[in-house]
């Protein structure tokens, strides 16, 4: 009861904070829109070719793009953590009886909520340009991506709490993000990749999510690849949260 109540209280606060920081909202939405406007035209000629079996490239590109959004959203979670560490807010809340897991999970949940808003806007923009939206599939995608944000968010917060300095935090997070993104097929499907790359990709959790996203966008909900993506993401979520909670309890601001 108390964990839930604290989560709701802190979630509201975090969600409203983002509204008061409109720059963040605009930038968060502009990135995927720019990809949509300035990257998809490059793919037009690939339609029907390898990796793009469907009629419209957006049906392959957009599911990857929202995977990218979710990943980056979660990974950036450590920045506000660092600011709150510096201005004493984390310390302040740690002295209250507020539930520890609630303190950790609330900002990440607010991020999930905002990501849902962004994705809905993005899809609304993409449909007139030919994106074929499969509603049940997209709903399952949202759940999967919510879990992905939890994984990357908890991971990012833990790295921030351990490093405490923005420079080392940014270096670690960027250093990890780039190979993970390149080896996941967010921009172009890895079915176009040489076999060694596809082998390596199987060790990358994001790869499973992106593959599942493309199937779900086509309405293929009961595919085993989708199940595997959920299995991998839920497993990682449990692991990263267990770790991040430990880090948070010990964190010395």
């Amino acid at each position, binding site marked *: 009861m*108390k964990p839930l*109540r*604290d989560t709701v*209280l*802190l979630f509201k*606060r975090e969600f*409203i*904070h983002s509204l*008061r*920081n409109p720059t963040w909202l605009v930038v968060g939405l502009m990135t995927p829109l720019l990809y949509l406007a300035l990257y998809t035209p490059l793919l037009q000629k690939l339609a029907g070719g390898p990796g793009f079996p469907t009629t419209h490239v957006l049906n392959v590109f957009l599911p990857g793009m929202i995977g990218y959004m979710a990943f980056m959203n979660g990974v950036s979670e450590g920045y506000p953590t660092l600011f709150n560490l*510096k*201005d*004493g*807010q984390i*310390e*302040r*809340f*740690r*002295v*209250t*009886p*507020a539930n520890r897991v609630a303190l950790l999970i609330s900002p990440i949940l607010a991020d999930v909520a905002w990501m849902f808003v962004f994705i809905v806007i993005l899809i609304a923009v993409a449909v007139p340009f030919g994106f074929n939206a499969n509603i049940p599939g997209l709903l399952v995608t949202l759940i999967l991506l919510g879990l992905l944000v939890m994984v990357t968010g908890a991971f990012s917060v833990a790295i921030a709490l351990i490093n405490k300095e923005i420079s080392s935090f940014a270096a670690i997070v960027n250093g990890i993000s780039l190979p993970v993104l390149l080896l996941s097929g967010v921009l172009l499907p890895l079915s176009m990749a040489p076999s060694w790359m596809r082998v390596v990709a199987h060790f990358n959790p994001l790869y499973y999510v992106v593959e599942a996203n493309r199937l779900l966008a086509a309405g293929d909900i009961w595919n085993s690849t989708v199940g595997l993506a959920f299995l991998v993401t839920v497993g990682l979520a449990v692991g990263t949260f267990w770790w991040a909670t430990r880090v948070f309890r*010990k964190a*010395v*601001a």
Partner: protein
Amino acid sequence: MSIISAKMLTKVYAGKIRAVDNLDLEIEAGQIFGFLGPNGAGKTTTLRMLATLLPIESGEATVAGIDVRRQPAKVRQHVGYVGQLGGADSLATGREDLILQGRLYGMNTFEVKKRTEELIDVLDLREFANRKGSTYSGGQRRRLEVALGIMHRPEVLFLDEPTTGLDPQNRANLWVQIRKLRDIGTTIFLTTHYLEEADALSDSLAIMDHGKIVAQGTSRELKQQIAGDSVLFSFKNDGEIIEKAIRIFKQQPYVREATIEGEQVRLYVKDGAVALPELLRLLDKENIAVKTMALSEPTLDDVFLRKTGRSLRDTGPNGKGNGESR
């Protein structure tokens, strides 16, 4: 019974730095307890352990009768804490921030609203309570942070360097608020490296250095240990003259101590008003020309000096910076 009690409290960083070293502490309820010491003395570490922010690895502590090590969650219901960093939310209004704080302490909506308005009055926040925290001045922000710390009417309030960075007017203002809190029964545990603050504000105090308490008692008791006045001399020619003067001073029965402080000589004498003319006569006889001299009643700095051999004013982050506190 003591409201805060610590036995053999120890914190070792990196396996060897003894930030807090076998600390024993008993604090009576309902007073302002000042924890004075230079930066790095271990004041903040002690306070953070008592406030449940740092795990206690060695030794024991109870706050409000609760074992801090075994029941930190229970301790949190009884203590308030205002850290050096503050913790006010820049993106929320003061009122919103107070309401959230109350809700996190489990107060219901009605209770929270009532308490928020009460605190807005007590800490004089009304003028800016509906503005975002980012627009506050240093003093306004600090007042909001104190309000956040006492939202749940804690028995003990920990304040870590509460007036650092405030201008003299805001500092005086905060002192008034802190005394008010004491007068309604809150025990205040505050750390400071300002001598004047510890002297003026604390009902009793402890002086800390290198993780140990070097003196403890009321300000008056501590100064009485010095028993006498302090005289500071500087001479027109230093070097050998200083050595010579010290030799002369030490021969006088009423001089309890004579030490060199840089270019100056500090004496502790039984009665400054009697000793000073006598000392000047002696120096004159030996042809030692005095450049400056100062007579003062003992201060907490003298206490610190006696116990550690250093002046508190020389141990701050920027040396002289702490001198402003006198």
